[in-house]
């Protein structure tokens, strides 16, 4: 699968405001997933969000969205495409304490996604500055995109991509100190 990681900090790059007014705490109340319109409209996204916020996941999620891709964004030979993003933060410390820590976590995930067979799909992780209440640090926006011959085909591909993506969530966030020693 085509997966990559990027870092966008400063210079007007978007920032993750994790505890935004529409925030739903799915770790505490998974049954509230229906309150997230995008998840209610596309069940595979609900499953993805609940897995990302599940007991064994080292992450919690903030905001998400789903949209139809423009023609120029589609994979070759495809007529339709769907994409979504999910903002991800670590459970352990509310935000990633260092951008290198978030990047290292993303690279682990990219390595796991590499062997996954998912034609016409791609994943991009972007490390961003993030705020969660009083906590200031870094978060990850994960973009998932899938193309297909028509909208139904693209929806199936995105659903499969979400399931595959959730299957290989790294089990732990690398400690910030260990990452800094590696740099």
């Amino acid at each position, binding site marked *: 699968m085509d997966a990559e990681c990027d870092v966008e900090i400063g210079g007007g790059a978007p920032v993750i405001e994790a505890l935004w007014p529409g925030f739903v705490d799915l770790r505490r109340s*998974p*049954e*509230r*997933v*229906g*309150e997230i319109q995008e*998840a*209610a409209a596309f*069940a*595979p996204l*609900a*499953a993805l969000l*609940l*897995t990302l*916020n*599940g007991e064994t996941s080292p992450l919690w999620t903030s905001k998400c969205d789903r949209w139809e891709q423009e023609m120029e964004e589609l994979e070759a030979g495809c007529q339709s495409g769907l994409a979504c993003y999910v903002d991800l933060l670590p459970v352990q410390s509310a935000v990633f304490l260092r951008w290198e820590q978030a990047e290292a976590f993303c690279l682990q995930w990219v390595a796991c996604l590499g062997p996954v067979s998912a034609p016409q799909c791609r994943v991009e992780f972007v490390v961003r500055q993030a705020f969660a209440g009083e906590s200031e640090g870094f978060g990850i926006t994960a973009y998932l995109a899938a193309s297909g011959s028509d909208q*139904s085909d693209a*929806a*199936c591909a995105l*659903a*499969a991509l*979400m*399931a595959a993506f959730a*299957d290989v969530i790294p089990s732990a966030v690398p400690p910030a100190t260990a990452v800094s020693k590696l740099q």
Partner: protein
Amino acid sequence: MNIKIPENAESDHWITGLPAGLRPFVPCRGLANGHLQTIVANYFPRPAFLLESAAVTVEVDPSDGSRVLCHCHWQPEGIRPSRLTLLLVHGLEGSSGSRYIRAITARAWAAGCNVIRMNMRNCGGTEALTPTLYHSGLSGDVGVVLRHFTGLFGLQRVALVGYSMGGNLVLKLAGEWGGQHPLCAVAAVCPAIDLAPGADALHEPANRPYEWRFLQGLMARLRRKSELFPDIYRADELKEMGPVRSIRQFDEKILSRYWGFKGADDYYHRAAAARVVERIAVPTLILHAQDDPFIRLLPETRAKLLDNPCIDFVETLHGGHCAYLSRDKKDEIHWAEAGVMRYLQPFARTGNGR
């Protein structure tokens, strides 16, 4: 059974009559959607499962030595035979450790029942215990397990409880057995009674994530079988079969080949409990949600269920697949589990429950 049409959406979220003891199902707020019910139920927090069990393997086919693994919870010896025993059967790619199986085990144990959590062949990490694959028609395995423990402990009353594919297995056995001792009752939650339309429904676009999950599990299991039994599941043969992209394809290319069915449709016909439900002769509860994403009931099957006086067929508007998260509080939030135990309660107290 008389069909009652709901008069308003708030108070009536069920469309058939309810047997005594069952409460009307009102879905959890925000979860009046079959997909969300199905998905959320898999993540809904559950209390830790702390009951100790005895692991026992039972030979289900002497011709090839196939065995299944059961996790058993026995009441003390003196009272064991007289207590109701629940034999629980999980769904496709589930196991004796599935969340819903553990949850109903805890309830049944608390109610004083013996409980047998049966793994279907290969499930629960038991691929090495049988050279075969598993499928929806193996109701005989359930019967062998029932007979094994009945013979061992002199069990006087056994109730079968099955979920989804396990629901088909227990209903099929109940149809095949009729009123045979010691079977006293059956409960099936979202049983996959009509296999062909269910398999085809799984391939609908909205259901691909479920199908993808099932296929991932089935294909991973097939690879393990090929490692364990390379002479049966030959790598070159499996490669020749090409990619498997749907449950129907799996049943057509893999299951039929190794079980000797003529094809997927032959398998669906022969394995479906729908063929025998009219012969069920013990009290039987069947729960089915109209918004179940992939379980389909054919009109003729529904008619058979409604015509059999032994069957309490409860069809709700909502509930998803084996989910039934209700608006009730505490333990009652899991409506199907609470309902099944209420239904079986009379059999725990007396011999016939009626």
